[in-house]
């Protein structure tokens, strides 16, 4: 049994608070039960000097220790100034109410801990409890912002001794939560500890300019500058589209012109630009399907108009608003009637739900998910499909943002039940699903040993679920398909499957939903899904 951690230890300078122990992380079914390597690579001595890893030996941000006591003091003061802004109705009207509620009304009952896949998978490491971040934040607020009397703080257990390392650990810890909000779902008090993770990230970003570079510099900043967080320019997009058209012709014998910047089209479809780079088959499948169904659609080449990601939703309100506005402006300039979001969970939540209270006037263009349209195409027989073409075991991953966070649960299931004879659910599924482990930006975060952590810890529960869903056909000789209608989740599956050697050991291919639909189209000569995609 692990050592029990006292909250005060969080502030103790020096030693690392927790270590992922291979003997304690939740076991996976065979052959994944044999742990052949340390789950997480150790940082080199030089890296440890440069970056604080005193939380758990893992680095997502890697803050550099201050050079002098003055620097430390300035750092702390700046953080505290930011913390005050979290409670200002001007600076934080966006989340003031849910944040205040959580901080004031959580009774620390720990029910949420048992719902958290990260905490459970880690072997119940105390630092990963959903309550740890809010507790540290609450103590900082009572001691340094509200400045409660010492006796009251002792009585209420809200006293804390702040130093640079506490904040460095807190910053890292905010990036050990996937924002899957499974914890919030079980809280009877209506508290949301996931939101607290986000709000801590926000103080670091909006006040201190600190965020993982994959989210900020190379993420939202790059998206606003060149058009996409992938770095892909509009000119590069056009080249990729030509490539995609050629690929479609090669695979299907059809010549399809992908509509780009078509003024007055009915629908602007925005994909996660990760698809263009990593999974062009998803774009191809969309183009084939929408063409066959006679949908009037277009892509855009305007800044942010061809990349549905909005990383701000995970760490920064202002960056969020900027991207949401640019995406809407792209649609406005094309004069489309509506925006539809492709297979990307966080883009769904960000673009359809969260942006809802940012976009006003003529920027408030109707936005919807592509899934109901896909459902209509499949279930109403707008194209001819042959389910026997998908006669292999298929299971479905529910992207948290699309399912638990916005209630799109049934359309993808109705499609799969129609076209995949061997479809089976994971347990639990739907709004109670487990996160892929790559939520809230983790799937794109490649810093040092962080990818190991997200495969070994935050994604482990999902890994277990996938293997269990296919437990009747465990070996690699039976090819199986994990349907993940989300680019971000696919990014996580790509890395996690590589980490565990899933293709070699189990023969599981991950991919989107639309690929399965196109694979079942009767008028395609060859199967669309190519198992070599792994």
């Amino acid at each position, binding site marked *: 049994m692990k050592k029990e951690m006292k*909250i005060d230890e969080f502030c103790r300078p020096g030693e690392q608070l927790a270590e992922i122990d291979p003997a304690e992380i939740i076991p996976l079914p065979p052959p994944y039960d044999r742990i052949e390597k340390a789950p997480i690579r150790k940082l080199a001595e030089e890296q440890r000097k440069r970056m604080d890893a005193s939380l758990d030996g893992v680095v997502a941000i890697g803050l550099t220790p201050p050079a002098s006591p003055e620097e430390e003091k300035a750092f702390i003061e700046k953080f505290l100034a930011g913390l005050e802004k979290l409670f*200002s*109705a*001007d600076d934080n*009207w*966006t*989340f003031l*109410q*849910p944040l205040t*509620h959580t901080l*004031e*009304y959580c009774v*620390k*009952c*720990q*029910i949420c801990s*048992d719902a958290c896949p990260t905490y459970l998978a880690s072997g119940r490491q*105390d630092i990963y409890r959903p309550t740890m971040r809010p507790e540290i934040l609450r103590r900082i607020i009572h001691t340094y912002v509200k400045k409660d009397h010492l006796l009251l703080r002792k*009585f209420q*257990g*809200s006293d804390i001794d702040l130093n640079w390392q506490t904040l460095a650990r807190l910053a890292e810890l905010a990036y050990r939560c996937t924002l899957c*909000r499974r914890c919030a779902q*079980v809280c*009877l008090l*209506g*508290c949301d500890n996931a939101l607290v993770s986000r709000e801590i990230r926000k103080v670091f*970003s*909006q*006040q*201190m*300019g600190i965020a993982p570079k994959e989210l900020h510099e190379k993420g939202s*900043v790059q998206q606003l*500058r060149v058009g996409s967080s992938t770095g892909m320019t509009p000119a590069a997009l056009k080249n990729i589209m030509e490539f995609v058209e050629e690929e479609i012709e090669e695979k299907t014998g059809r010549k399809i012109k992908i509509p780009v910047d078509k003024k007055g089209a009915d629908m602007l479809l925005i994909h996660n630009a990760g698809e263009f780079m990593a999974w062009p088959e998803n774009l191809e499948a969309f183009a084939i399907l929408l063409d066959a169904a006679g949908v009037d659609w277009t892509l855009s080449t305007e800044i942010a108009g061809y990349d549905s990601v909005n990383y701000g939703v995970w760490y920064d*309100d*202002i*960056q969020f*608003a*900027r991207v949401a506005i640019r995406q809407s402006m792209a649609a406005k300039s094309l004069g489309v009637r*509506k925006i539809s979001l492709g297979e990307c969970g966080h883009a769904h939540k960000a673009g*359809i*739900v*969260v942006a*809802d*209270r*940012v976009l*006003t*006037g003529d920027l*408030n263009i109707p936005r*919807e998910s592509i899934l*109901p349209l896909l459902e*209509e195409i499949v279930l109403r027989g707008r194209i001819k499909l042959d389910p026997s073409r998908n006669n292999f075991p298929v299971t479905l991953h529910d992207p948290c943002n699309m*399912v*638990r*966070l*916005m*209630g*799109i*649960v*049934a359309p993808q299931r109705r499609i799969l039940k129609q076209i995949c004879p061997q479809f089976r659910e994971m347990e639990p599924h739907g*709004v109670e699903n487990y996160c892929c482990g790559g939520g809230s930006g983790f799937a794109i975060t490649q810093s040092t040993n962080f990818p190991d952590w997200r495969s070994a810890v935050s994604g482990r529960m999902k890994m277990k679920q996938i293997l269990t869903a296919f437990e009747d056909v465990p070996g690699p000789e039976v090819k199986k398909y994990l349907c993940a209608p989300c680019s971000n989740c696919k990014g996580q599956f790509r890395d996690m499957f590589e980490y565990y050697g899933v293709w070699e050991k189990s023969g599981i291919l991950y991919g989107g939903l639309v690929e399965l639909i196109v694979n079942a189209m009767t008028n395609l000569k060859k199967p669309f899904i190519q198992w070599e995609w792994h």
Partner: protein
Amino acid sequence: MGTLIIVLTYIAYVFIVVVYTVKVLAWLRMPPHIRWDLYPVIHEEHYRYGGSYYEQQEWWKKPRPKNTWRSLLYSLKDNFTMGEYYERNRLYWLFLFPWHIGFIFIITFHILCFFAAVAMYGGLDIGAVSAHLAGRVFYYVLLCTGGIAFIAGTFGSLGMPIIRLADRGLRTYAMPMNFFNYLFFFTVYGSGLLSWLVLDPNLDEYRTYWLGLITLTAPALHTMTLIHIILFDIFLIYLPFTRSTHYITRILAYYFIRWDDEPNLPGSDLERQIAGLLGRKVSWEGNHIPTGKSWAEAATERGFPEGKKEKP
């Protein structure tokens, strides 16, 4: 002493009502926030599996029926059953449940005593052998609610510190205030239990006390009952300093956060409110933010997010 009790009781009730009201109003007065809904949303048609109106094509053209009664019942139910605790930590529930039941029943008991006293003032005889059915019903209902309150509350406040120390997660987050509360609440319920069992098996004294309250005449009570009533009044005054407002705010959080799926439709009041909020100034100091400008300007101003500010 009887007069003191009357004054103290009025102060306690006025205090708790005023402070709870202020707290709830402060909660409600916070500005509208960004949508942060979480499914299942219980007023939704497909709440059973957690579906939303986004499952339809062009949802903005479709009706969005809301079953408000269902969501109200759902949110209230957990105030009583604490089902999530029963499912996830049964041992904790075993003590937490009576602790809350004690709380709910003791408040209910006093409210019922008030009505009983009004009825007595109007001439109703309340007792096991009252000539009126209403008098007998009142008697037994009061006996049950009071009895349950004292027994459950005492049991809960004895068990809570034990489970708080025995359960690893609860122990880590325990604070001295928790144990003070358990001890204090134990004296409140325990004194009630004792005076009921030893001195006042029919709970007559509470009716006398409430009759005294509404007629402003000092009641004659046993010392033990007096002690319990004084403790209960202090308990009422103390409650607003604890997290007890959560009985109300948790329901607000369900309605105004977790289940708030109201879309911002063009021309709506919500859209007007948001436009106002976007005009507020930001003072965030990150280099990618134009400090001092409005939200709308910060989100659209040229040169940002990359435009670095000169350090003063």
